[in-house]
């Protein structure tokens, strides 16, 4: 019993850690997709900003400066996506894929050119990373079984970006459903013509959404290389941008449900990490961790194939807005 609670707490703790970049990316995707722009380039932005964060942090010694660089890179890529898809009505998927390929190649090339470590960045010292924060009363409450332990061991002790990511969920929800910006954002993804005739600039709205998207992806990238890990490793985003996109679709483009989907993917990931090298009880074989690691991806395919009921996307998603004639 004692043992299983310890395992449970550590799995939950891990869930929060691995879900964080997913949540940030899902919120980023939510803004752009709600405005009608498909953003498959979450993956590329995540990767490129992770590289920027690690590289700049290594040079300056400050993870905050690194994060600013990560946001700048991700923001620029978002604007590039906008320039192709919003200004020039390009195909959003093609533009997104192009950004992903660009990020995948350029991070390695630049990494080798700058640091000569086979595409990696040098490992960051502890004080050049986002470090865990003890929440108040964590130590005192740790003695209370379960609830206190949950607070002390699962909720407390993460770095600031984890708290930021989860705080962003209700904030996103509030922005999208309770503000003027949100109303216009949702409208522009559903019927841009209605927005245009109401005297609101469709392109400007889509650019604003992409701007928010860029910032959030940048934070996610910084988390990956300067908080969760201590260096940039090639292809370190490992499909998390796509998983976030899938979570966004499971969550039917709603912040809270998208977060739950991210947590579900995170939980599977955390279980896989926890079971690394564990024997199946009563046998000589290890738990097939690779299978569990593959679960999020298998689940993505199965769920997308229609097991979650019909996810109705914003009506105008993927369609460039062109005025008639």
């Amino acid at each position: 019993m004692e043992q299983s609670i310890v395992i449970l707490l550590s799995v939950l703790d891990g869930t929060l850690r691995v879900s964080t970049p997913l949540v940030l990316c899902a919120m980023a995707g939510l803004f752009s997709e709600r405005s009608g722009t498909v953003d498959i380039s979450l993956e590329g932005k995540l990767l490129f900003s992770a590289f920027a964060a690690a590289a700049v942090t290594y040079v300056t010694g400050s993870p905050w400066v690194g994060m600013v660089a990560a946001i700048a890179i991700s923001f620029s890529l978002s604007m590039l996506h906008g320039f192709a898809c919003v200004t020039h009505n390009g195909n959003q998927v093609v533009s997104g894929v192009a950004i992903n390929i660009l990020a995948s190649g350029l991070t390695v090339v630049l990494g080798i050119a700058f640091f000569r470590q086979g595409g990696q960045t040098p490992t960051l010292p502890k004080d050049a990373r986002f470090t865990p924060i003890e929440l108040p009363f964590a130590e005192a409450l740790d003695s209370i079984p379960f609830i206190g332990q949950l607070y002390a061991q699962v909720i407390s002790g993460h770095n600031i970006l984890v708290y930021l990511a989860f705080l962003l969920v209700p904030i996103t929800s509030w922005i999208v459903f309770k503000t003027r910006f949100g109303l216009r954002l949702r409208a522009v993804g559903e019927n841009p013509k209605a927005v245009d005739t109401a005297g609101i600039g469709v392109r400007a709205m889509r650019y604003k959404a992409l701007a928010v998207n860029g910032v959030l992806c940048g934070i996610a990238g910084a988390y990956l290389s300067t908080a969760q890990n201590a260096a940039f490793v090639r292809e370190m985003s490992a499909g998390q941008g796509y998983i976030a996109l899938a979570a966004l679709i499971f969550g039917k483009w709603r912040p809270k449900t998208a977060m739950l989907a991210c947590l579900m993917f995170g939980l599977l990931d955390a279980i896989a990490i926890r079971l690394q090298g564990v024997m199946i009880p009563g046998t000589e074989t290890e738990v097939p961790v690779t299978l569990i690691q593959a679960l999020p991806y298998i689940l993505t395919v199965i769920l997308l194939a229609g097991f979650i009921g019909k996810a109705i996307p914003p009506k105008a998603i993927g369609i460039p807005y062109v005025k008639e004639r």
Partner: protein
Amino acid sequence: MTNQSSPSSAGTAIELSGISKAFGPVQANSDVNLSVPKGTIHGIIGENGAGKSTLMSILYGFYEADSGEVFVNEKKVSIRNSNDAIATGIGMVHQHFMLVDTFSVLENVMLGAESGEVLKDSIKKAETELTRLEKEYGLHVPIHSLIEDLPVGQQQRVEILKALYRGAEILILDEPTGVLTPQETDQLFKILEALRDQGVTVILITHKLREIMAITDNVSVMRHGTMVAHRKTSETDREELAELMVGRKVRTKADKQKAQPKETKLKVENLSVFDQFNVARVDNVSLDLRAGEIVGIAGVSGNGQSELLEALSGIEAVSKGSFTLGDITIDADNPKNAKEMRDLGLAHVPEDRLHLGLVPSFSAHESSILGYHRDKEFNGPILSKVGNIVNYCARIMNDFDVRPQDPSLKSANFSGGNQQKLILAREMDRDPPILLVGQPTRGVDIGAIEFIHQQIIAMRDAGCAVLLVSVELEEIMSLADRILVMFEGRVVGEIEADKADEKILGLMMANAHKTSPDGEITA
């Protein structure tokens, strides 16, 4: 230029002077003048492509005029976008509603006219204001319902509310009645009259003479991008307006003799068609179609007429029931595809000519043989006989007066009326025993309508069995010998054409009519 008041006279809401606008080589508006007195309902009538919508789009800031001046309330204004138009008090109700379907009425009304960054105050303000507008003009709409849950008539009211909420004193309505039942149209007209009585100026763009006569105070007629006449509605009539629109005399009602129906050509028994969600789009429909008669199917668009036509023509599968042509019965177990149906002598003029009738990117001669492209006449052992196809196309174009008479022109480059004539020519040329026609004159000019109607009647008189689906009641009443009304996939009533009028058909279309035990239909 009668009834044209000078710009300086009191009480002019809109004054356009010398407006011209070209799109490439096409002169959409040339030197258009218009004067609309305040607090009146002003009709603008003209055929498709006469330049009505372009003119109004200039007024609403969608396009900028190449030359000319706009005065609103006797002040010269420059309207470069919708915001400018809204600021000068102009509101527009578009033909295709500019509403967000997944938003509530309230959210749609607020959009673009919010009072602050946070919606809370906007919502409160909009609620109070909407209640006021509702009382003042009789515009009842459930403000917290989603747009997608409302019938079209109410969606249109939301568009009007949107304009009024933004303080519009001049309301432009672009073809507002196309999607409405006659009853909804009457309600709309009541609202427009209430608006006028409160001092709002209404501009009504339409191609329907009946509406102009029913509601407007003044009417301006456009033809080929120019304003050809201004009239007081009380001093003109339908014949004069039709003549002004087309530029020659036209008959507004088709001439025809009484039908001489003969043997049954098509027998439909308890036919049902289910869609992908297993909802019955066509629900247990039975009808007989005899040689030498036109059976009209009326109904508000989307009540199963399209699916019925598609099932009969072999495009859509039959789910239940059957239909019989001669000794061949088609049901769920014995399906026939569109080619097989054609081989059985069933010709089909589809409702949506650009998607089903022809291929827009094909040249006219290629489009002119679609469905008959396997004929020996058009095919050699390997290559198609292009010469034959072009000659054939030229001949049917001549027979049906398709203009321009150029078989190599791209199908998309013909006007709607000429595309339709080309399709009719193709389907009618082989004298099919059964002809299904969907919306034969949708988006077609009044001059071409006359011709198309004559051709359909000629087919009937030659012994063809014609099934006509149309949402235009005038068309159904003037062409059909018997009228069936569809509502939610069912045939809710049948009436002889000479006993039908708009009122009774309107009630049937809303399934609000009464049927006496002996089958008599009353209001």
